[in-house]
């Protein structure tokens, strides 16, 4: 999987687009003006591209706060005449959004933390601890990246059923906790750390836990953040597995709750559906806003392994 192997290394030099353009722009303001005059059509295209992606989000946000009389009118109103919270209230009445939010938060936090912890320990083991057949084992683990998640649904449902965990948090979380991609990314990072530091420590007889806690982890914050953020996004947005493995309304996570709301809403009010949607979208948009760099590197790498 050479394409996969190169990705995390390539991303480490932080060649993130945004960072680079942002750094260059202020320095050559003169050229920038020239650019402007030269490339007006480029700017136009850029604006058009932005519009294509902003307009649906704009519709989402405004509709969530529009009254029905603003939504069901023609020609359409771009902005709400009154801001209303009724949609949110109605969404709460039609579906247990409190429970959805609670479930999503629990599943996301516990799932992501467990995934990161397992990935850190596994990566540490593969990077620093001796084990016969370790490299073969590593390849076997990487092989899991090739298994398409959708094909595992049926059997995992049966497995979780046999464990008596259907409709439980453990049932939702457990199959997603094992992490081959995160382990791979962290192991590559750990192995790139300067070994001299560790050798000095080994003379000291520093235990492995201390080595992990006081040296490897502090030196790997960006890599771990990347793995954690990808895990958070995956868990929060996860759809088909929570759909299958839960069967009572009160155990549904937010994305499934949205489908429930839609079915319950009977296509009556777009405002209600949009306010529910906003609750699903907003947290991840905020996370993205503040951690864009890590997320972009992480997700571009994660694509190699269908999110496992």
């Amino acid at each position: 999987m050479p394409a996969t192997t190169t990705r995390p290394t390539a991303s480490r030099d932080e060649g993130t687009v945004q960072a680079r353009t942002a750094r260059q722009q202020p320095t050559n303001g003169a050229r920038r003006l020239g650019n402007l005059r030269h490339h007006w059509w480029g700017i136009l295209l850029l604006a058009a591209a932005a519009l294509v992606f902003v307009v649906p989000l704009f519709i989402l946000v405004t509709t969530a706060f529009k009254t029905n009389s603003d939504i069901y009118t023609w020609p359409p109103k771009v902005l709400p005449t009154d801001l209303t919270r009724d949609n949110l209230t109605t969404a709460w009445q039609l579906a247990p959004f409190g429970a959805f939010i609670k479930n999503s938060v629990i599943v996301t936090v516990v799932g992501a933390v467990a995934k990161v912890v397992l990935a850190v320990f596994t990566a540490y083991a593969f990077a620093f601890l001796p084990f016969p057949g370790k490299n073969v084992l590593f390849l076997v683990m990487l092989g899991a990246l090739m298994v398409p998640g959708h094909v595992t649904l049926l059997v995992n449902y049966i497995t979780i059923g046999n464990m008596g965990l259907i409709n439980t948090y453990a049932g939702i979380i457990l199959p997603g906790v094992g992490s081959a991609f995160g382990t791979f990314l962290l192991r590559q990072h750990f192995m790139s750390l300067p070994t001299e530091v560790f050798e000095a420590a080994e003379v000291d007889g520093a235990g492995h836990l201390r080595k992990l806690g006081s040296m490897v982890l502090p030196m790997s914050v960006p890599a771990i953040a990347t793995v954690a953020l990808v895990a958070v996004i995956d868990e929060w947005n996860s759809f088909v597995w929570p759909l299958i493995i839960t069967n009572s309304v009160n155990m549904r996570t937010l994305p499934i709750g949205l489908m429930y709301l839609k079915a319950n809403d009977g296509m009556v009010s777009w405002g209600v559906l949009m306010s529910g949607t906003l609750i699903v979208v907003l947290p991840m948009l905020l996370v993205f806003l503040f951690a864009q760099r890590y997320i972009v590197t992480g997700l571009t790498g994660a694509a190699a392994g269908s999110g496992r």
Partner: protein
Amino acid sequence: MATVAEEHVGVQRTPHPSPPRRHSVLHQRRQRRGAALFALFAFPNLALIAVFAYWPVLENLYLSLTNWDFISPEPIFIGLSNYAQLFTSSTFLDVMVTTVTWVVVVVGASLVLGIALASLFSMKLPGTAAVTGIVFAPHVIAGAAIGAVWLFIFDPNYGLARTLFEAVGLTSPSWTTDASWALPALLIVSIWKGVGFVAIVYLAGMQGLPSEVLEAARLDGANRWRLFTRIVLPLLSPTTFFLVITQTIAAFQAFDIIAIMTGGGPASATTTLSWFIYEQAFQRSNVGYSAAAGTVMFVILMVITMLQFRYVERKVHY
């Protein structure tokens, strides 16, 4: 399973690293302690991967040879009947046609639009950073949420679709409830969600191109289009290949957008292989039949992944 076997072999084989003879006893003890710690650190994760990624492939293969409804005590072995039924069913043929259409259109359009966006971004015009972020944003949003928003956009009575169609003097179709418009609607949404990711990967690829080569070509008087088709595109072939594979694998498994927008309908107009697998197992309790369809998906994606292995190693570059 494999991991447990490894462990036993491991314990017997450990004590034979040759180096420092003097400290060999110490060294051995250290190795053994290290191996024990390795097991402690790595095996929980490896066990989960074995149980929830590898075991399903094998068990799914077995289930595909049986007839079961989740409820009756045991799956009944029926040989290849499920496959025979799949491959002679006109419904399944339709499903495969829909799936291939989906994959080809989504992957094709995402790549073309993605590289166009990346070219635009690589001009480093003012505002590029913000637009890059905006275009990528849908990739971090739940497909279910995106589906819900577009459901409203496609509303022929009050949605943006009506505005746009009326602007050019047409009447908007009833997208998601019209059998001939539902699939195009979902394709648009799927492309909208995924194209930003493709653009970012292409952009990273473009920034890694050797600037001397591009500069030389420019000095030789190559115009933009020639530069792009003769130099940039061939140099980006590894990126393109990576994207084709990963996007194809993702497109085959598209689910949440279908679930919230059409539920595979109207009739079965948007039933892809991924929806079919879900529907057969979890809405109709045809476990064996669903497993057989799952195996079909597994084999197709395996072949594509193998192609990646072979092709990337041998060729791809320029």
